[in-house]
């Protein structure tokens, strides 16, 4: 089996709700485990029997294609049975239905629930109600731990060590669960994190998380080892948060010209899907700098690792 025996840390959490609650060692355990699962993905038979007989429910109450597909594939590679439940949490009244849904799923005796939900705290709430392991696949603007883990895995593959790397996260920080999870994870691993975006999209007192705040993209990316570019949600313009797409591109869009301010070997990450020509120009998105497709591949490995750690833990508890 593909677990990593070198890491002495033992996983003893029931759920993965966010990176805020993980220690540095736990994050490294997931990453090391993911590294070894990645090898599985290159085999001709891309499947291991690790979670055979376990059931993973993919409860996606907010539209998602790539995260859901990634989790589903990860579970299948581990030989788990998967059930996909899609819906729209916005049409559900106040979380009562989430509780009902949880109770119903619980009654089916499943092992892992992967939850994507538009409400912040929904994964936490669910985890209190069910014995199954809960994986947060994105709760509103709060956390998206597996995305940050796959981002960090991708950086680690190229740079070996996260310690002391200068990492700029650019865009709508205020509404980004990807930014929050990345900040927690990267800070724990010793990176220097700079968040950069319009002042109107910068959450209050964010520097108290130990990050540097910049409103000047050229400053922020100067000497950066990694630039993690966030997706701009167009509807923010209607919420009085920036004047126009045009001006957003002028101030914060990453293109070839702007990258002349960054290091020659800078890495570009993006959680996808990319608004080509807005936060990222097409030539940068398709350039060797960009690791966007590596992120997708690593996403499966990271999710296999998380499912494995939580799924096995669950099995041990029940014995």
């Amino acid at each position, binding site marked *: 089996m593909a677990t990593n025996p070198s890491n002495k840390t033992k996983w003893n959490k029931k759920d993965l709700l966010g990176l805020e609650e993980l220690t540095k060692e736990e994050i490294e355990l997931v990453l090391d485990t993911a590294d070894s699962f990645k090898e599985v993905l290159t085999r001709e038979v891309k499947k291991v029997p690790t979670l055979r007989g376990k059931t993973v429910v993919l409860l996606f109450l907010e539209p998602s294609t790539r995260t859901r597909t990634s989790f589903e594939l990860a579970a299948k590679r581990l030989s788990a049975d998967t059930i996909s439940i899609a819906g729209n949490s916005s049409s559900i009244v106040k979380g009562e239905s989430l509780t009902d849904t949880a109770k119903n799923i619980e009654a089916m005796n499943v092992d892992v629930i992967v939850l994507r939900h538009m409400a912040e705290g929904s994964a936490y709430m669910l985890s209190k109600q069910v014995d199954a392991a809960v994986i947060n696949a994105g709760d509103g603007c709060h956390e998206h731990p597996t995305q940050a883990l796959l981002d960090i895995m991708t950086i680690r593959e190229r740079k070996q060590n996260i310690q002391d790397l200068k990492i700029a996260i650019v865009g709508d920080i205020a509404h980004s669960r990807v930014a929050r999870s990345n900040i927690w994870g990267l800070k724990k691993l010793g990176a220097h994190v700079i968040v950069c975006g*319009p*002042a*109107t999209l910068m959450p209050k007192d964010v520097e108290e998380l130990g990050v540097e705040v910049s*409103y000047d993209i050229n400053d922020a990316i100067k000497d950066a080892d990694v630039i993690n570019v966030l997706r701009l949600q167009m509807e923010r*313009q*209607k919420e*009085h*948060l*920036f*004047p*126009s797409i*045009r*001006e957003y591109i*002028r*101030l914060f869009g990453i293109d070839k010209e702007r990258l002349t301010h960054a290091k020659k070997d800078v890495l570009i990450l993006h959680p996808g899907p990319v608004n080509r020509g807005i936060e990222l120009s097409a030539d940068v998105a398709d350039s060797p700098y960009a690791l966007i497709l590596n992120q997708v591949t690593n996403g499966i490995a990271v999710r296999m690792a998380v499912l494995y750690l939580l799924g096995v833990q669950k099995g041990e508890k029940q014995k």
Partner: protein
Amino acid sequence: MSLLIQNGLVVDPATNKAQIQDILIEKSGIAKLAKNIKADNKTIDATGKIILPGLIDLHTHLRVPGREDEETILSGSLAAVKGGFTTIMCMPNTNPVIDNASVVDLIKKENAKAGLIDIIPVGAITKGQLGCEFSELAELKEAGCLAISEDGKSVENTHLMRRALEYARMLGLLVISHCEDKNLSNSGLMHEDIVSTKLGLKGIPDIAETIIVGRDIELARFTKAKLHLAHISTGRALELIKRAKDDSVDVTAETCPHYIALNDEAVSTFNTNTKINPPLRTEKDRQQILKALQSGIIDCISTDHAPHNQAEKELEYNLAPFGTIGLETALSVVITELLENKLIDWLQLAKLMSLNPAKRLGLKDKGFIAEGLEANLVIIDPQAEWLVKEGDFVSKSKNSVFIGKKLKGCVDYTISKGRIVFKR
């Protein structure tokens, strides 16, 4: 080409010194500042005269583009230099509104033709001043705006104002707030008190101003933005501003000559030139304004020069537009009301009308007098007396609330970039 100004009282607010000196101007700059400079060329005898740094007006309406029948860049510039101003900011409530780089460029191009003074356009906070989305402020800044304002009204949506302040802070832009709750001013015509009661004119209560002053101060405190409060007219607003300054909120304030010289009794003749927004307030408000000018709670005096077509001002009081012109009378009104009554001295005047506005805009080489600076100067005859006459205005509009008033102090010369642009 050189010009020597001899023997004037040179008032420099930066060093806080007023002393008799000569000023030698070579090309566009001040080459030398000393006593008894030898003359070998053209001279101006400034004996008995006061020399101030060129005045800076944070608040004019030049009506360009859109109402060139009321004022043009050239006529506004001529009015400015006659009043001693060498730098003015023009407000964005034009047609089209100054909310994008092309309108800024148009004004700059027009001013390159007029060529008398520096004109700095103020960008609109929201697109079209419609209060829906804030303008492309980075573009406006790049085009040359130093400040943004919704002048003519407040940004009604408090959340939008918050976001605009945050965004402006990011760009280092000054936000100039016209403080008026339109729901409270409620189509009023003059200040609401016993005078409006007697005249039967619909009133504008002082809370229409103070509530937005309070709101915008709180927004500035929260966002840490640079806020400048335009044309403050009420004593209560000054109390709020003092409190904010004590709390280190980054806020400054201006008032205008008409609030210094007049109270709402002036409306009693139904002269439409007294119809101004914000309105002329009570004598008590006026007294508080005078005190605040002395103590520094008010940082600047601006004109709120608001030219209006004669035919429109000659309508009935309720139909006439708000506003008075002010560029040509501001300095003399301030001399008459504040200097002559010994409320402030020349140094304080130079701060209120030149150094403080320059500082607030971040203009590091304006607002004072020193060797090496561009020669922007005004030479004043402090003893001259004159009667304000409608026919004497060079502004394209004649709607001055001071017509018929006798004023003390007069501009003899205005020098802009080393060139005499006005001579009495």
